[in-house]
């Protein structure tokens, strides 16, 4: 039969909606970061004769269709499912047993309206409002919670959490934060402490997110940003100074300067701010202890003061024995995501349990014929959206080499393989399989219906409100099929 040029790509996603962390990870007050959606949407809109891209939402690989079935239907299967399911652990007392301790990942998914994290809302509500002494229903939407929140970790996710808690409904009203979330956050929380065990030079956050915290007050959020000069000085070891040198040290040098300038700005007039966000450095959490009044709930985070020891780029935070107790009504643990194997992959050599990644070389998975991997599940949960551009080029290159080889080695089809023409391959095979197994997949057009329903004026808070997300898969499917 005829040789057709071009590549057809099918994208399979567990939720009805695509985009992953762009929809459920990127903070709602960072809409410009979500602009990449337009490039992704263009893949589906701008098709040409040589190749095509199709979308299959609401299909769970491992449950609705096995990975091995996919591998048999397609020339190449690429895993790009990220690190959604698990997190690194602190390994300290109280981490698992106390109420009011959440993974930052869950908190983020909740404030972004992820359909599987709605239950986080009642936990946050209890932490923020049950100890206020006021009947919560009486409080208006700008009431500030007296709760004290401790965020453990200092990556961009930790800073996002702090900023969202500080802004509350007034600061987020024109974003796509779900209304149910804003009703729980109300006017924000009065105290957020973001603690990191190493110094400010070693923090994983980038300057953009830090700068936003320094601007909270000027932008009308009634929240002061605090860093302690003393902690900046403690963190400026000789090794840290080494880390600032040269062109590679430029980003950290600018972060240091911004923090130094911020530490000078705090003065008594800031006492008028109703809210406070502080970054605390060289503080390592050693245990979570319950409230005196209720032994099921977290009450304090005990931290040990650390000092940095070691060579540049390899400094370790060593305990000094000095401790400080942080009162906490809500604790968000933000120390990193972790990858998980797909169903069926657990026992194989394909998955590196300690790193939480699929074992691969330039994206080609070891021990599997036509399996490739890209993104966080390939290299671990680090980097920004743009990092994936290089990563995907690397994997795409491996795929093209693989296809070249396959092409060159292809045997001519013999006429006796008639049963192969009976079973469908690729997209047709996938659809036939899904339909015969009653899997209700969502195609691109149907996703667009979800999108336009979310933007329906009757759902929106105001003319500036970009969309009111559906908070359940059921509601998404109704909109998709309607």
């Amino acid at each position, binding site marked *: 039969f005829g040789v057709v040029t071009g590549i057809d790509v099918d994208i399979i*996603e567990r939720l009805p909606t695509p985009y992953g962390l762009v929809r459920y990870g990127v903070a709602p007050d960072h809409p410009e970061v979500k*602009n990449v959606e337009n490039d992704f949407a263009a893949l589906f809109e701008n098709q040409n004769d040589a190749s095509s891209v199709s979308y299959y939402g609401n299909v769970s690989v491992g449950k609705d269709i096995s990975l091995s079935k996919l591998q048999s239907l397609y*020339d*190449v299967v690429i895993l790009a*499912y990220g690190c959604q399911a698990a997190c690194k652990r602190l390994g300290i007392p109280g981490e698992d047993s106390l109420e009011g301790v959440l993974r930052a990942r869950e908190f983020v998914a909740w404030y972004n309206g992820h359909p599987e994290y709605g*239950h986080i809302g009642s936990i946050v509500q209890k932490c923020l409002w049950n100890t206020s002494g006021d009947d919560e229903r009486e409080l208006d939407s700008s009431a500030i919670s007296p709760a004290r929140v401790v965020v453990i970790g200092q990556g961009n996710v930790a800073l996002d959490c702090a900023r969202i808690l500080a802004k509350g409904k007034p600061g987020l009203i024109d974003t796509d934060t779900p209304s149910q979330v804003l009703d729980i956050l109300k006017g924000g929380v009065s105290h957020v402490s973001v603690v990191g065990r190493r110094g400010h030079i070693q923090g994983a956050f980038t300057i953009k997110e830090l*700068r936003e915290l320094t601007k909270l007050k000027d932008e009308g959020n009634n929240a002061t940003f605090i860093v302690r000069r003393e902690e900046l000085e403690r963190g400026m070891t000789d090794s840290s100074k080494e880390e600032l040198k040269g062109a590679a040290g430029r980003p950290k040098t600018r972060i240091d300067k911004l923090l130094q300038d911020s530490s000078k700005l705090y003065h008594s007039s800031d006492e008028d701010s109703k809210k406070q966000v502080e970054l605390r450095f060289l503080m390592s959490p050693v245990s979570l202890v319950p409230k005196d009044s209720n032994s099921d709930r977290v009450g304090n985070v005990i931290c040990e003061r650390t000092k940095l020891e070691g060579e540049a780029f390899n400094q370790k935070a060593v305990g000094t024995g000095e401790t400080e107790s942080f009162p906490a009504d809500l604790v968000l643990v933000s120390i990193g995501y972790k990858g998980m194997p797909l169903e069926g992959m657990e026992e194989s050599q394909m998955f590196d349990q300690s790193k939480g990644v699929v074992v691969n070389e330039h994206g080609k998975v070891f021990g599997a014929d036509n399996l490739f991997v890209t993104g966080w599940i390939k290299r671990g949960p680090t980097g920004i959206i743009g990092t994936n*551009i290089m990563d995907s080029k690397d994997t795409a290159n491996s795929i*093209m080499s693989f296809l070249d080889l396959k092409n060159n080695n292809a045997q001519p089809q013999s006429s006796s393989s008639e049963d192969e023409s009976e079973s469908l391959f*690729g997209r047709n095979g996938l659809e036939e399989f899904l339909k015969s197994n009653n899997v209700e997949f969502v195609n691109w057009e149907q996703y667009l219906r979800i999108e336009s329903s979310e933007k329906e004026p009757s759902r929106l808070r105001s003319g500036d409100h970009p969309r009111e997300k559906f908070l359940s898969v059921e509601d998404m499917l109704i909109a998709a099929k309607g």
Partner: protein
Amino acid sequence: MTSLLRRPASLAASIAMRPLHQAKSSKIKVSARPSMVFKRPELGNLGLRSFSSKETVTITYIDASGDEHPVQAEVGKHLLDVAHDNNIELEGACGGELACSTCHLVFDQDVFDTLPTKSDEEEDMLDLAFELTETSRLGCQIRVTKEFDGIKIRIPDDGY
């Protein structure tokens, strides 16, 4: 209480392909995306961004492989948009809103010195650029001027 252990999201991209007769084993080239500016009505300052006189000057983009691409650039347009208009491979992942560093461009010193000062926000994004130089800027922030006639601008490697 619902179990918090979730199954991983299975976003699996699958490729179905008939044999390619032109599969290349060399580095793949990602084709330039057409300018997305006009497809984003939500960009509040759309009018401002696309304003330009009809006057053009000649500027040359040097791509990561060293190949030169002279183009006619409309005065007043941002260098990112000019690249897209002329099918030059220059990523602009965030659409020109200072939320990424993918439109990173490197200028000659004498041209760089004439450019308007960087904002903190542009500097913050440049911090993340691969192989940042002393004369680096983001293409979405620099508008073409008449004085750009004849200049060459380098598109640096993106790390791949």
